[in-house]
């Protein structure tokens, strides 16, 4: 081996290699950016469409040849969206439902994930597998049975009915369990030796260590409340308990059942803005949370 020492580049013109290397890099970078920008445009276009549509008149929206930019900008659509849809009340409901369900959901999720990650009990694996299997069933089928159930409980038209049925998310339990499993078990055993109670350990060690995940769950849960549509519409009949998306759909139809789409788009835009902001500022946590769901284990 020693006699076969390679002289890979001795014969090469270093100057040439350097130039070629630079050119390749420029080309690769150009292609990368071109690709990413094209994809970004494709991704963004529907949003652009949403915004320009929200500024058009109904007549212009219905034009056979759609315009890429509104001929006349109608800010009035936004005003109409606000006044027609009772957005204030719906917004408040959404925030209440979102907050309460997030907090309760976090408690339940943390406790369950802890049990699955740290405690030993009979049938743990079977139970966990069963939980995961429920994720495979088309949930649409549950709606009717659940509706009958909540009606029998007398929960219709209340915050309870919007919150309780969706408190348990198998996905979040799974996500958090994976996170908890990554925390070394030694920490738990050490805490046991010190006589720290489970709850204190959870609060002092597990929760701080999995904070990014918990924040992600919070955001996803809030987003869920923000976007939920079918269930709230089913179980509430007045604006006292309806959520924001219901307002979006229901407020702008005229007698012939046709939606005033520009105004609806204006409302959608308005309602989307808080989500965008949350997303832009907390993107890091959302990304971390989702990507950490990990697959190992």
């Amino acid at each position, binding site marked *: 081996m020693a006699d076969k020492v390679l002289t890979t580049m001795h014969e090469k013109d270093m100057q040439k290699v350097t130039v070629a290397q630079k050119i390749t890099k420029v080309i690769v970078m150009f292609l990368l950016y071109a690709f990413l920008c094209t994809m970004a445009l494709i991704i963004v276009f529907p949003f652009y469409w949403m915004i320009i549509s929200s500024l058009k008149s109904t007549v212009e929206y219905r034009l056979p040849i759609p315009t890429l930019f509104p001929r006349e900008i109608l800010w009035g659509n936004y005003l109409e969206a606000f006044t027609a849809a009772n957005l204030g009340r719906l917004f408040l409901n959404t925030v209440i439902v979102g907050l309460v369900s997030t907090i309760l959901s976090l408690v339940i999720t943390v406790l369950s994930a802890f049990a699955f990650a740290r405690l030993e009990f009979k049938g743990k694996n079977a139970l966990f597998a069963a939980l995961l299997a429920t994720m495979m069933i088309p949930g649409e*089928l*549950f709606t009717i049975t659940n509706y009958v159930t909540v009606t029998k409980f007398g929960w219709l038209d209340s915050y309870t009915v919007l919150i309780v049925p969706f408190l348990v998310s198998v996905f979040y339990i799974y996500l958090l369990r994976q996170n908890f499993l990554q925390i070394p078990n030694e920490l738990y055993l050490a805490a046991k030796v010190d006589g720290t109670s489970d709850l204190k350990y959870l609060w002092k060690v597990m929760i701080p260590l999995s904070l990014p995940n918990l924040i992600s769950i919070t955001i996803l849960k809030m987003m869920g409340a923000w976007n939920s549509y079918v269930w709230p519409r089913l179980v509430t009949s007045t604006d006292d308990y309806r959520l924001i998306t219901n307002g979006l759909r229901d407020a702008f139809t005229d007698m012939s059942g046709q939606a005033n789409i520009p105004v609806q788009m204006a409302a959608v835009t308005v309602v989307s803005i808080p989500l965008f902001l949350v997303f832009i500022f907390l993107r890091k946590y959302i990304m971390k949370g989702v990507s950490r769901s990990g697959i190992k284990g």
Partner: protein
Amino acid sequence: MKNFLQKIKFDQWKAWIYLSPAIVLLLIFTVWPIFNTLRMAFWNGYGLFKELGGELQFEFGIKNFKWVVGYGGFLDCLKNTMLLTVLTVPLSTILALVIAVSLNAIKPFQRFLQTIFFLPYVTNSIAIGMVFEAMFNIVGFGTSNPSYGIINNILGVFGVDPINWINAGSGYWANIAVLVIYIVWNALPFKILILLGGLQSVNKQYYDAAKIDSTPRLRVFTKITVPLLSPMIAYVVITGFIGGFKEYSSIVGIFGDDMHAVGGESLNTMVGYIYKQLGENHEGDASAAALILFAIIFVVTMINMYVSKKKTHY
């Protein structure tokens, strides 16, 4: 030893206490509905309204399943579901992978572009469905001077003749193409999110090592990036398959409740069939179809898991 046993016992009931809120809620809102679905599936001709209307006795049997399978359009539903899944899952996964890797390779504007790619994650699906329809729609179809829609206009720049995507007389494959684009668009953010997260947690030294070894870019991608990301890819593919088999709302979003283009072939899917049966108060048939769908998803997921166990590394 006795102490140890006591500890185990203590752990036992403690675990169940911690799990109790979740279990109680799941029993009520998940397990009971599943059980109820089973019940309805095996009652011949069961319909909730029929029961409400006073018909209380339903025969136990598998007539509902026979009825579902015997439906003339059942094979179409199955075919469409499979086709959409088989087309969209690989496409969206590969595209998401390429985007994630590209994003990971650049510095300026990385955060900005990331944010853009995640935007669809936070938007209202109702609005986006309308937008997609408008983009592909040809208004004035069959007239001498129609507006071909923005997509055809863009394609026209590259010299492509206008394609009838979704309008009257459009072909099956054009319809499928639109659906694939829409579904892939919808699926991208989640997949990019997962894959980019995975990429960012990959130890940079593997790439340094590859550089030192003069590995060409493509080989780095296929031999290092993809294998190292294989757990994430498997996850994305499995959830993609499950989602694909539940495809429904995207088709309604673009083609309406009829689920086909004017004069075109049916684009109905399994879930579409289930919804239709629910709409016609055939809860028994809907439940039977849901069970069939569940069985399909279950088998496919098992195959997926088996393959990914073999293919994913470490």
